[in-house]
C-alpha cells in the first residue's frame, strides 16, 4: 500500500471487531468467464452502448410497436388466419365503417370524461389547497384505497349498489319513495356511473398535482387585490391548472374508450359500445379477425387523434403528458 502511512497506533483508538467488506468482486471480475463475456462487452464505449441499447430497443420495437403493426397489417387482409387453398388479398373492405357504435363510444367517453372532470375537480382542489399540508397525504391515501382493488371488483361492487335488489333500491323502498325497484342496472346510467367510478383516480392525480403547483402567494396576492373566491378560481386556479386538466382528461378519455369489463358487467343489450363490437369479431368465427383489426385501428387512430387535438387546443403548444 502506501509507503508513507502513518505510524501511530490506530487499533487502540478503535473499538469493536473489524468490519466486513465486499471483497469478492475482483475475483469475479478477473475470472476468465467474466473477462471473456461481460468484460469484453464493457470494454469499449461502443460495445457498452450496444449492450445498453440492444434489449430495450428490441423489446420496444417488437412488443410496443409490433402488435400494433401486426394489427394494421391484418386489417388489410381479406381473411385470417391464412388457410390452405384460399385466396389472400389485401383489401380495404374491412374498413367499411361500423359507424354507430364507434361514434357512440366516442360521445359516451367524452361525456364520461366531462362528468368525471366536474366531479373530481373540487375534490382535487380541496386536497391540494384547503387541506393542511400535514394532513394531505392522509387525505389522498383515503382516496387511493379503493383503486388497488382492480377494475373487475370495483365494477362488481357497483352492481351491489344499483341492482334491483341492491342497496339503493332497497333504501328507496324502505323510505317509501318507490313501490317497485327501479331497474337501473344494465342501462347507460349504470354504465356511466361505473365508468366514472373507475376512472376518477386518473383524473384526480394529474389535477391534484397541477393545482398543488400553483403557488399560494398568487392566490394571496389576488385576494389582496380584491378578488373573491369565484374570481380567484376563474382567473387564477383554472388557467394555471390547465396542464392537469389536459393530462387528466386525456388519460380518462383514452381509458373510457378502451374499457371492456365494465360495459360487459354493467351494460346490457342496449348499451353496446365499440369494444364489445370488436370483441365479437374475435370470439366468433376466426374469419372476422381482419375486420376486428380494422376497427381496432380506426379506434386507436381516432382516439389518439382526438386526445392529441384536445391536448393541443386546450393545453397549448407546450403540453406534455407527464
Amino acid at each position, binding site marked *: 500500500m502506501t509507503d508513507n502511512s502513518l505510524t501511530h497506533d490506530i487499533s487502540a483508538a478503535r473499538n469493536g471487531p473489524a468490519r466486513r467488506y465486499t471483497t469478492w468482486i475482483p475475483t469475479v471480475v478477473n475470472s476468465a468467464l467474466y473477462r471473456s463475456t461481460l468484460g469484453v462487452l464493457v470494454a469499449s464505449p461502443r460495445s*457498452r452502448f450496444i449492450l445498453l441499447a440492444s434489449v430495450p430497443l428490441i423489446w420496444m420495437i417488437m412488443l410496443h410497436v409490433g402488435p400494433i403493426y401486426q394489427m394494421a397489417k391484418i386489417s388489410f387482409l381479406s381473411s385470417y388466419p391464412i388457410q390452405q387453398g384460399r385466396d389472400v388479398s389485401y383489401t380495404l373492405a374491412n374498413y367499411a365503417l361500423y359507424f354507430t357504435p364507434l361514434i357512440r363510444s366516442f360521445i359516451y367517453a367524452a361525456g364520461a370524461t366531462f362528468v368525471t372532470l366536474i366531479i373530481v375537480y373540487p375534490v382535487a382542489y380541496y386536497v391540494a389547497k384547503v387541506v393542511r399540508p400535514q394532513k394531505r397525504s392522509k387525505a389522498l391515501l383515503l382516496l387511493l384505497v379503493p383503486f388497488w382493488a382492480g377494475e373487475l371488483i370495483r365494477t362488481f361492487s357497483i352492481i351491489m349498489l344499483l341492482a334491483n335488489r341492491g342497496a339503493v333500491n332497497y333504501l328507496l323502498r324502505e323510505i317509501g319513495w318507490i313501490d317497485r325497484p327501479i331497474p337501473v342496472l344494465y342501462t347507460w346510467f349504470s354504465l356511466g356511473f361505473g365508468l366514472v367510478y373507475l376512472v376518477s383516480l386518473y383524473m384526480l392525480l394529474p389535477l391534484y398535482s397541477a393545482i398543488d403547483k400553483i403557488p399560494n402567494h398568487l392566490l394571496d396576492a389576488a385576494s389582496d387585490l380584491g378578488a373573491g373566491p369565484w374570481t380567484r378560481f376563474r382567473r387564477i386556479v383554472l388557467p394555471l391548472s390547465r396542464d392537469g386538466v389536459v393530462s387528466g382528461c386525456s388519460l380518462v378519455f383514452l381509458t373510457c374508450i378502451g374499457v371492456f369489463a365494465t360495459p360487459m358487467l354493467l351494460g346490457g343489450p342496449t348499451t353496446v359500445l365499440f369494444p364489445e363490437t*370488436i370483441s365479437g369479431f374475435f370470439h366468433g368465427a376466426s374469419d372476422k379477425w381482419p375486420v376486428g383489426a380494422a376497427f381496432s385501428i380506426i379506434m386507436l387512430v381516432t382516439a389518439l387523434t382526438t386526445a392529441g387535438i384536445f391536448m393541443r387546443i386546450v393545453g397549448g403548444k407546450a403540453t406534455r403528458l407527464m
Partner: protein
Amino acid sequence: MRALFSDPSRTALNMAYWGFVLYLLVPLTLMMAMSFKDANFVAFPISDWTLDWYAKVMQDRQFLEACIYSIFIAVATTFAATVIGVWIAMLIASTGGRWSALLFALACLPAVVPGMISAISLRIFISTVNMPTGTTAIILGHTVHAVPFVVVMALTRLRSMPPNLVDAARDLGADSIVAFFRVTLPYLGPAILGGMIFCVLLSIDDFVRTFFLGGYRPTLPMLIFAKVQGGMSPEINAMATLVLVVTAAVGLYAEYFTRRTRSR
C-alpha cells in the same frame, strides 16, 4: 391561507370531498357486507349474518388454484417488467434531447393505447408468432402493460441521481457493470421496489388482457367474472372481498413506503 375562503366555499368543498369519499367507499363496503349474508341470493336487506361463505371460498379448489395462478403470473410479470423497465430507463437516461423524448414516448406507448386495443393487438401478435394463448401469453401481455410504469418510476429516480456518482465508481476501479450493480441499482432501490409492487397489483387486477390472451385456466378476475355470469351469490362477494382486502393492504403499504422514502 386560512383566510382564503369564507365559510360557505370551504364547507362546500369539504362536503364535496367527503361526498366523493363516500361515493368511492360505499359500493365497496356494500359488497363486503353482502359477503356475510346468510342466504343464497344477493339482495338487501341483510338480516342474518354468517361467515359460511368465507369458509366455502377458502375450501373452494377453483378459487385457491386461481389465486396461485394469479400470484404466479404476477411474480413472473414483476420480474420481467422490472428488468426490462429498468433497462429501458437506463437507455433513456443515457441519451439526451430528441432521442430521449422519442424513446420515452415509445416506452410509454402501451400505457397510452386504450386497454382493449392493447389486448387485441397482443392477441393478434401472438397469433402471428404462433404462440398459443395461455400462461406465457398472459405473462407477456401483463409485462408489456407494466413496463411503462416501471420506466417512469425508474427514470424519475435516475434523473435525480447526481451524475458524478457513476463516474466516481469508475474512477475508483469499477467497470460499467460493477458500477451499475454497486451504485446505480442501490440508488434506484426505492423506485424499483415501488415499481415491483405496482407490477404485482397491475397483474393481479388485470382483466381485459387476460381475457383475450388466456387459455382455460382462470386467473382471479377471470374466475370472478365467470361466476358473475353464472349468477350472483354472496360467495362471489366473499371472494371479491378477500381479494380486495389483500390488494388494498398491499397497495396502501406501497403508497406509505414510497411516500416515506421520497422524503429521504
